[in-house]
């Protein structure tokens, strides 16, 4: 880039940035597409698929990454405003409408920022558009591009003559491909991006005006409810329609294989009909006892995957001065959205529209088309935000169900799940057991580390063609995705950390190429995929939180055996500079006192301690280290976190306020998961089906303080951030409890009973020594 070009890019940063706090226009998902663009022509390699300039000067941008409350609508609007040098209020972002937005798959996996903010997709489209308009202006004004400056969409030449974006391209196609060489604006010059701009949905939310999918109403709308089986695997024997004969306003009882639902004129009538409908179900299979679930899990037939195997761990462990063994278990947990899922579908003979809170608008379109036996391009899915989902909650299933009900009655149907429909049938976060062994040398270094985990899974996101991955599909007779057979052969190719299965301390060597974050070269990580009795699917930090809980607590155990300081001991086994960076930053911010854990010579009813944990999320998608300070009530076994200090490196930050909100919420959600959240069941069915039976920390909980430091190395791309801090939270809390009490918690959640048991065990062990 020439210096003058750089100056230009800077100069558009000199404009006065203002923004509207009232975001009315941005909240509607029903916009006009790029002018004249046909649905089948949403080609992501074309600029017109991403961006259009209206005659009114409004920049309309189209994204396949949608906002569930994580702030990506605001951040993407900032991105477009930044690259195009316009006020934020001039940007209108349309998210995840399959008739007008590019297919970006699923909004998940901390991928929205890496996908749309670096060198491709939305960011590249906005940069391409700016350069294209500069070139047009250069011709129109008869001046070289280097002479041009731009402020709020007005391009001015050295002569003082100017032209507006809309004069150049208003309501017209660019007819250009995305230009891979289009220059992004430098973070140092940002004036809109990188600023803590208040989230655009804020005022509408706080004043009760915001439209959730639950509020979508279309003319002639009917209301539906589903009637689910009492237990997984139960099938319909008979549906007695006479049982609801007296329900006024009932339109239809819909039965399709094992799918049962009702449609009525009002919500109340639909609710009554669903409650009253007599369905005779065949019983499902017995469920494995919860008491020894993990012991049984480890005995089940498994499909195995080796992430890394140096093939010398047994030999090195035999030589070690000390070998430490432990098993960690992580329960099934729920997304547990506050709002039970809802969708509206309007299925006509030749077309269908579904208003859905799914994270996967395009995949949902494909599945709806499949279930209705309709051509894909006849189905439109319009994303409308639902209750926060944190992954695959009931939003996909309710969208499919609504389409089936609407199809059955030939009228638009709004389907509202009950609390039990939501909780009993969601795709849970996987239960997981991790067995670990490691050896220490005489001088207190880890010489070998061996790790095996057992992951229970059944189903997943439905993707484009697997409806059986969620309950609707199963009821209709589609098969769920089963654990994929693995070879358990030595891995080949590039090292991957496989959902943080591989601890950060492994060198990660495959055929001599070491792609891991650490220094331990005698290493093995083997995963056993086991069929789950319940549906599973991605829940915020899927498997990463489970694996990191085990890895980071076990690391703390090794550290205690080596009688080393937990920060220093980690640093001794790390080589990734960004993990090292956040670890040091967190320790410094927390005023970490270097000493081994546990504390010694402590007494009293309440003991305090501190713990640390760190992670490279998925190896390279964000880095965090968290210090937790907790109090432990030695009589009740209650763990009360008092303070969290987190250091985060996610590269350049799009919106610091949005990031803080995500990190704070993530850590506190992680704390709830660590302390109280656990799915329960008896021999027939799930028993945690509402907020009396599934625990979550309510608003009366005494929340700890959360302090944050951001580490941003120069010249790195943006990574995900919303799942990074939650990933280390359970481990940091567990390590802090150990520091306070000497008791090691290896089973999540850390209920008072489990803590008490660990305290007793720890006291007995101390007595024997």
């Amino acid at each position, binding site marked *: 880039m020439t210096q003058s070009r750089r100056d230009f890019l800077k100069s558009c940063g000199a404009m006065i940035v203002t923004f509207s706090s009232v975001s009315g226009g941005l909240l509607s998902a029903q916009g006009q597409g790029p002018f004249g663009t046909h649905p089948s022509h949403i080609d992501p390699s074309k600029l017109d698929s991403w961006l259009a300039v209206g005659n009114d000067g409004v920049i309309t941008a189209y994204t396949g990454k949608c906002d569930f409350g994580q702030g990506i609508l605001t951040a993407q609007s900032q991105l477009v405003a930044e690259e195009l040098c316009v006020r934020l209020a001039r940007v209108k972002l349309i998210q995840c409408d399959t008739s007008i937005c590019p297919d970006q798959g699923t909004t998940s996996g901390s991928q929205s920022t890496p996908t749309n903010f670096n060198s491709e997709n939305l960011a590249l489209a906005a940069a391409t558009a700016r350069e294209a308009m500069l070139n047009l202006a250069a011709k129109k004004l008869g001046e070289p591009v280097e002479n041009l400056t731009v402020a709020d969409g007005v391009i001015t030449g050295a002569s003082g003559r100017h032209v507006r974006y809309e004069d150049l391209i208003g309501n017209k196609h660019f007819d250009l491909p995305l230009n891979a060489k289009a220059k992004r604006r430098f973070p140092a010059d940002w004036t809109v991006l990188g600023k803590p701009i208040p989230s655009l949905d804020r005022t509408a939310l706080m004043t009760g005006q915001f439209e959730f999918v639950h509020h979508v*109403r279309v003319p002639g709308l009917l209301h539906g409810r589903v009637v689910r089986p009492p237990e997984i695997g139960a099938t319909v024997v008979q549906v007695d329609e006479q049982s609801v004969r007296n329900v006024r306003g009932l339109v239809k009882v819909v039965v399709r294989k094992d799918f049962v639902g009702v449609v009525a004129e009002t919500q109340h009538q639909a609710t009554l009909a669903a409650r009253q409908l007599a369905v005779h179900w065949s019983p499902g299979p017995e469920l494995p006892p919860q008491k020894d679930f993990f012991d049984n899990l480890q005995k089940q037939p498994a499909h195995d995957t080796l992430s890394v195997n140096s093939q010398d761990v047994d030999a090195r462990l035999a030589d070690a001065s000390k070998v430490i063994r432990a098993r960690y278990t992580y329960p099934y947990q729920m997304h547990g959205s506050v709002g039970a899922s809802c969708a509206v579908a309007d299925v006509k003979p030749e077309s269908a529209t579904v208003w859905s809170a799914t994270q996967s608008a395009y995949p949902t379109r494909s599945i709806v088309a499949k279930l209705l036996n309709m051509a894909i391009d006849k189905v439109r899915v319009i994303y409308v935000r639902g209750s926060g989902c944190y992954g695959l909650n009931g939003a996909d299933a309710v969208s499919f169900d609504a389409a089936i009900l609407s199809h059955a009655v030939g009228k638009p149907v709004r389907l509202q799940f009950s609390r039990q429909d939501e909780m009993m049938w969601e795709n849970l976060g996987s239960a997981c057991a991790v067995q670990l062994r490691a050896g220490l040398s005489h001088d207190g270094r880890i010489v070998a580390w061996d790790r095996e985990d057992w992951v229970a899974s059944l189903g997943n996101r439905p993707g484009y063609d697997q409806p059986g991955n969620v309950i609707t599909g199963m009821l209709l007779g589609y098969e769920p995705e089963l654990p994929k057979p693995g070879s358990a052969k030595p891995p080949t190719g590039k090292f991957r950390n496989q959902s943080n299965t591989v601890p950060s301390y492994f060198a990660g060597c495959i055929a001599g190429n070491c792609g891991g974050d650490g220094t331990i070269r005698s290493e093995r990580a083997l995963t056993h995929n086991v069929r789950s009795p319940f549906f599973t699917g991605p829940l915020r930090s899927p498997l990463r939180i489970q694996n990191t809980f085990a890895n980071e607590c076990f690391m703390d155990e090794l550290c205690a055996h080596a009688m080393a300081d937990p920060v220093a001991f980690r640093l001794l086994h790390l080589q990734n500079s960004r993990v090292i960076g956040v670890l040091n930053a967190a320790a410094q911010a927390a005023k970490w006192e270097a000493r081994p854990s546990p504390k010694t010579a402590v007494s009293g009813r309440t003991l305090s301690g501190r713990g640390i944990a760190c992670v490279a999320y998925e190896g390279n998608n964000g880095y965090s280290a968290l210090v937790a300070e907790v109090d432990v009530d030695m009589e009740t076994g209650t763990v009360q976190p008092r303070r969290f200090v987190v250091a985060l490196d996610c590269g350049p930050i799009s919106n610091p306020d949005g990031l803080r909100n995500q990190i704070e919420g993530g850590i506190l959600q992680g704390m709830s998961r660590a302390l109280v959240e656990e799915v329960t069941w008896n021999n027939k069915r799930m028993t945690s089906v509402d907020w009396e039976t599934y625990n979550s920390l309510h608003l009366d909980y005494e929340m700890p303080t959360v302090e944050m430091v951001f580490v941003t190395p120069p010249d790195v791309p943006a990574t995900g951030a919303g799942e990074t801090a939650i990933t280390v939270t359970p481990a940091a809390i567990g390590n802090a409890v150990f520091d306070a009490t000497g008791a090691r918690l290896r089973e999540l959640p850390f209920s008072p009973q489990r803590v008490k048991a660990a305290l007793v065990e720890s006291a007995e062990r101390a007595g024997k020594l």
Partner: protein
Amino acid sequence: MRQKVTLNVNGQRHVVEVDPETPLLFVLNDELGLRGPRFGCGMAQCGACTVIMRRQVVRSCVMPVSAVGQEEVTTLEGLGTPENPHPIQQAFIDEGAAQCGFCLSGVILTAKAVLDVKPDASDQEIRDSLGGVLCRCFAHTRMLRAIRKYAEAKRT
């Protein structure tokens, strides 16, 4: 059986024709088109459907519309407008005290109700009043900060 029911909601009188057993929430959402109170659980366990009646919070998902009578019902949108938000709404806007925002009726209206009755309520008392309110995004810290800010401004 459908009956005419008169409701006073957010300062306006409405006549709706519904089954008197219909939960108030469904009437607010479906007949009056209000978006503040939302269906969370239908079991009075989470607070997403909260409204204020007789200066007290009520879970509208379990209250039959026939039980409302002539009482004034206030929903989240009844406090203030986007152009002129109520001070507690303004405090939430200033603090950015939400993520998905689905739970806000329970959080904002419960805090307002307790502070209306007891303006000098302590942090502990405010928190205790929120014991039945759930936020699964865990925006707790910002929410409590916003409530504290509102409470302090109200006192002075």
